[in-house]
């Protein structure tokens, strides 16, 4: 017995170490992106995103990139890096962040399709999955035009970012400019790698930047997978205990638990996908699961905020704060009042009813929302 306990302690320790190494690599990858942008030069890097001034195209890019990478954390972290490096403006990046929110909900929708063989289970599972999609889509429908006309998310985030900068410089920097110790700790990574590429392979300029970008992207995705997998295993029993507490309730506790789980496992898809079998089995109602989904949206913004700690410029923090404010605002619109809460819930139920009657609607919905619509947006961008 004591040997078993000992081996479990060793396992926890190894997983914790893997988690911290992966987190360090994630931050290193963000730093490497910034380094690559510097090498490319602001003009060349900015040309990568020309055309994204069309907000619908930018939204589509956000959806599609997230669907392809199966991770909104990867998309938002990249956006933070590009914005921080000055290659993408906050204004153009906001629709991409919104699109990432929509794109990430494909994962749990695909998980729900696994219940397709049994009508009642599929109806519940599909409604549970799509309530997240519908909430995200409705929030974009409301907030994107509002942002385009008033810029309230950007202005609020800039205001907050200035306060954060002021606080950090005054309190942590003693009145002078504060240099993030996290950034300082990972700076050596791209520098050493770039100089190895220069000296070893003779790479320079755009080729060097391209290799750095590819390496950073691979590192970012592997690090996020490692963080997510390890934290999921480390936290499994805690998550189980928390979810058991909210099974029959709906409210702030669910919101907090959704945010907490997602912040820990660094993936809203993990949180929301875990809920699908519970929806399918009927042990979790839509009313009780909806706040957990909203919490997951809020919790996932931690990744972009983490990325902002190593982003080159303050605008990186601004876009990370936009992500947080966007999800908080969406939650404030759809969560506190029952009438508003019922809108995404009822729509998800209707959609689930439709798909149970004819399975073709599953395909139409998934392809239409996550592939065709974003591809059309991208076509607009490229034209």
């Amino acid at each position, binding site marked *: 017995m004591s040997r078993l306990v000992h081996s479990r302690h060793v396992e926890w320790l190894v997983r914790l170490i893997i988690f911290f190494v992966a987190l360090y690599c994630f931050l290193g990858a963000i730093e490497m992106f910034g380094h690559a942008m510097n090498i490319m030069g602001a003009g060349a890097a900015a040309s990568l995103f020309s055309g994204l001034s069309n907000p619908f195209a930018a939204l589509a890019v956000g959806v599609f990139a997230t669907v392809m990478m199966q991770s909104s954390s990867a998309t938002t972290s990249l956006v933070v890096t590009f914005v921080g490096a000055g290659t993408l403006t906050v204004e153009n990046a906001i629709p991409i962040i919104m699109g990432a929110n929509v794109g990430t909900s494909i994962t749990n929708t695909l998980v729900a399709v696994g219940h397709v063989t049994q009508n009642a289970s599929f109806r519940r599972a599909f409604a549970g999955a799509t309530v997240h999609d519908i909430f995200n889509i409705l929030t974009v429908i409301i907030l994107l035009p509002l942002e385009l006309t008033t810029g309230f998310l950007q202005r609020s985030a800039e205001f907050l970012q200035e306060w954060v900068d002021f606080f950090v410089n005054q309190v942590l920097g003693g009145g002078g400019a504060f240099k993030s110790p996290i950034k300082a700790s990972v700076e050596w990574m791209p520098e050493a790698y770039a100089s190895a590429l220069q000296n070893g392979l003779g790479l320079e300029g755009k080729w060097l930047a391209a290799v750095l970008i590819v390496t950073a992207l691979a590192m970012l995705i592997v690090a996020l997978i490692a963080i997510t997998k390890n934290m999921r295993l*480390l936290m499994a*029993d805690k998550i189980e205990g928390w*979810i058991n507490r909210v099974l029959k309730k709906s409210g702030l506790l669910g919101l907090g638990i959704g945010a907490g789980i997602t912040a820990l496992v660094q993936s809203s898809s993990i949180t929301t996908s875990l809920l699908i079998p519970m929806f399918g089995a009927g042990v979790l109602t839509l009313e009780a699961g909806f706040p957990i989904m909203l919490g997951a949206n809020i919790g996932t913004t931690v990744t972009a905020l983490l990325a902002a700690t190593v982003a080159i410029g303050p605008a990186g923090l601004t876009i990370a704060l936009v992500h947080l404010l966007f999800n908080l605002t969406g939650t404030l619109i759809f969560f506190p009042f029952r009438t508003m809460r019922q809108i995404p819930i009822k729509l998800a139920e209707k959609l689930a009813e439709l798909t149970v009657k004819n399975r073709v609607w599953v395909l139409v919905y998934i392809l239409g929302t996550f592939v065709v619509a974003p591809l059309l947006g991208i076509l607009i961008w490229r034209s």
Partner: protein
Amino acid sequence: MLDWFKSGQESESTGLQKMRSEFGQMLDAGRHVFDTASNAFLGGTDLEVIRKDLFATDKRINKAERQIRRELVVHASIHGASEFPACLVLMSIVKDAERIGDYAKNVFDLAELAPSPPQGKNLERLVELKDEISQIMANCREVFDADEEEQAKELICEADRVENRCDDEVRKLIQDGAQDKMDTTYILAYRYFKRVASHVRNVASSIVQPLHKLDFTSKIVKQGQEEPKPEE
């Protein structure tokens, strides 16, 4: 920080351990309702005094069954395939524990419906069987908690002997030309006692049998019969 992570790992208050503990409480409650209902039927207790307690306890058992099922879905969703066998075993035996409560209520119904309290030889046999079943239930809880295979096998054999005796009594009553209401009452009582013993045996089978053979214990019983009796 390590402590915080470790505190989340499976303990008495989380995961399968928690559900096993809840299941153990179901077994205790099942034994309580069985004892109470049997005592009422066999003539030892005032029906009105125990009715409320019996039905409240049975309600608790039913609630615990639903609670464990919910928790099993959550557990399986989070932990994935590696935990499925343990979850399926618990899902199966939780039904047995719930059925024990139902049969106990049936015994209580007999106490209300029987034209008179049991008497004579049948009373003696039923009291004897009731005591044995109650003891098997108590042992089952201990064996389940300890996860003891050998003791579980013994328990399965004991339960099987009780079931056979119940069958024998029913057979005798029918062969002797059962015709009055009391005979019907006895037949039903033996039948309910047998079913309770059978559900306890199913629970014990979860300790020794592979998942697909849960509830099927004839091989274990045969082996138990073949074992040479210890010298006295």
